[in-house]
């Protein structure tokens, strides 16, 4: 079953441009992609919680490529499919006025295929290939509007992404040269037997920089605000909601935790990179006027939380505190799921705002709750979730991270997390004041009417934002989040699953 996750979007991705060469059928393309993502969502829900491996071409693991489904990858599959489904639903109405939709949906499917591949594969080089599939499709998608700004953003993203890919490829080459294997599980067995550890450390550094560029950690973030604000709205939601997580944080933590068994200082570096991204991203977001750019900087800040949670997990693992480590990892994974839900909600919402007012400049618009109560309400839920107001999901994942930091004795980290939460609240209160409340400001264009095609996806995601808070309950957490955290923590279980040792 596992190769279907890659094969279905790959097939759709090549079929739609082929059909478009002969006939432009906008509605047909949209429905096909919606069915495709729906099918993949159903598949990933069926497969959820299962642990299995799949051998491509029937070759056994250290030689052939294998797909691994464990707690973490099955959770990531559900996140990708869920966000992709809602985005496809949104794109059906939103994108209908664009041209060349066969290519748009084709690239969208290819991006999906790449992300599923990264999530499933158990082979480092195969991961690189899928990463490039997803990344190259996203470069083209960012420039899809073909205006001068979009093309500039796309080009910048292309260059930064290519530099990141080169770092990753060099890291893989170093690793293969010293360890002699590309299979992640096999690497984890052999890596301790390598006499000269300097190449391993070099490749670790290359991986952190390369995947850091993909995940937009703070020194490497400059492409993200341009790319996310220039892309068509559904693509902004996909980029921010899943792409930077799967290509950046997930791939990095898979290699570092499961493959390299966390070389010295790596968890500390991850933690401080996370704390830095969180803080600086939040500070820059405070000063933004454009709604999408604000959301983009906020993404950098929120990615910091995820990285921080995973990095702290690594620190506690090396200090021999398994229970706290599990909690910190749960915090990171929980925040990843939550951020996917509310950030794609907010990006889709910003697309709706742009449809109503014709601009995204916060100083020129206002009073959206009076123009469109439904989208106003969903936007409010999104902003409250991301700023960590109690009943919503964002609060619970931040709470888990703070508890883990205090329990493990990392008080400065806990302080930074709390302070950044306050900053987050501040800039989303600014959005609240400018956009939601007050008199209706700005010119309402002809597109003022918001159709169900726009607000139904928003409603679905808003319900998710409220519902995901339930993951905090210990019973549900034990089923959904704990296996994902343990997949990173118990490297030996992963090796056992893949190699059958």
């Amino acid at each position: 079953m596992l190769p279907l996750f890659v094969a279905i979007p790959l097939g759709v991705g090549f079929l739609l441009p082929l059909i478009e060469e002969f006939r432009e059928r906008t509605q047909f393309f949209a429905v096909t992609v919606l069915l495709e993502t729906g099918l993949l969502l159903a598949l990933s829900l069926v497969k959820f919680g299962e642990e299995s491996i799949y051998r491509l071409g029937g070759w056994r693991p250290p030689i052939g490529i294998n797909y691994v489904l464990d707690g973490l990858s099955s959770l990531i599959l559900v996140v990708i499919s869920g966000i992709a489904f809602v985005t496809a639903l949104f794109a059906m109405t939103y994108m209908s006025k664009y041209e060349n939709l066969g290519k748009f949906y084709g690239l969208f499917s290819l991006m999906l295929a790449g992300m599923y591949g990264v999530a499933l594969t158990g082979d480092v080089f195969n991961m690189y290939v899928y990463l490039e599939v997803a990344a190259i499709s996203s470069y083209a998608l960012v420039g899809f509007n073909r205006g001068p700004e979009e093309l500039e953003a796309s080009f910048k993203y292309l260059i930064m992404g290519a530099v990141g890919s080169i770092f990753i490829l060099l890291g893989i080459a170093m690793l293969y040269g010293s360890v002699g294997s590309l299979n992640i599980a096999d690497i984890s067995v052999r890596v301790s037997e390598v006499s000269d550890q300097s190449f391993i450390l070099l490749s670790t550094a290359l991986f952190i920089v390369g995947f850091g560029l993909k995940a937009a950690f703070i020194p490497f973030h400059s492409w993200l605000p341009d790319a996310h604000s220039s892309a068509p709205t559904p693509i902004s939601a996909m980029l921010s909601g899943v792409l930077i997580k799967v290509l950046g944080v997930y791939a990095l933590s898979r290699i570092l935790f499961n493959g390299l068994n966390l070389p010295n200082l790596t968890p500390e570096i991850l933690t401080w990179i996370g704390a830095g991204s969180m803080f600086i991203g939040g500070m820059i977001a405070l000063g933004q006027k454009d709604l999408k750019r604000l959301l983009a900087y906020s993404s950098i800040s929120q990615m910091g939380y995820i990285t921080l949670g995973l990095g702290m997990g690594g620190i506690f693992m090396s200090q021999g505190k398994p229970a706290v480590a599990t909690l910190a990892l749960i915090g990171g994974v929980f925040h990843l799921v939550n951020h996917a839900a509310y950030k794609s909600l907010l990006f889709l919402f910003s697309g709706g705002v742009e449809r109503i007012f014709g601009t995204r400049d916060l100083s020129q618009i206002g009073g959206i709750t009076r123009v469109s109560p439904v989208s106003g309400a969903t936007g409010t839920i999104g902003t409250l979730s991301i700023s960590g107001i109690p009943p919503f999901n964002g609060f619970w994942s931040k709470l888990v991270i703070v508890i883990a930091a205090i329990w493990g004795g990392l008080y400065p980290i806990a302080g930074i997390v709390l302070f950044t939460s306050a900053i987050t609240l501040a800039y989303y209160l600014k959005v609240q004041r400018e956009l939601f409340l007050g008199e209706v400001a700005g010119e309402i264009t002809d597109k003022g009417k918001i159709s169900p095609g726009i607000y139904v996806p928003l409603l679905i995601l808003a319900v998710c934002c409220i519902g995901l808070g339930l993951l905090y309950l210990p019973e549900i957490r034990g089923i959904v989040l704990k296996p994902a955290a343990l997949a990173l923590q118990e490297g030996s279980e992963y090796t056992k699953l893949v190699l059958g040792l």
Partner: protein
Amino acid sequence: MTGMSPIVKTVTRWVSPFILAFGIYIALTGHLTPGGGFPGGVIVAGCFILITLAYGKERVEGIFDLKSASVTDSLASLSFLCMGLLGYVFGGGFLNNFIQSGFPGKAFELLSGGNMPIINIAIGFKVGGSLFVVFAYLALFRAIEEE
């Protein structure tokens, strides 16, 4: 574009059939000798690019225009995927070599590779088509700029 000097045109006319044949040979025997679909496709696309450079793009458009290159590209990818899925359906797993009976195949025998030659041909078409599309689009933009 009227093309390059008579020397270039003459040399191109002589060597291009050989380049094309060499590309096809590399793609076909990929499972026996070094090479395979990717390098074969690159060489085939290189042949068309050479003709474009020497004679101008109108000459190539008669043989291989943008639309058919793009269609070739998509069809070849789909046929590769079909081979993968057939392996999944008939046994083993995705991309399993379901045609070949024993492993390894006989040396220097063209038909001993099972589904490998078919996959190599698909990759050859895919790479040749898409590289040509990339080049043709670049040439297109250059032409617009000159006007």
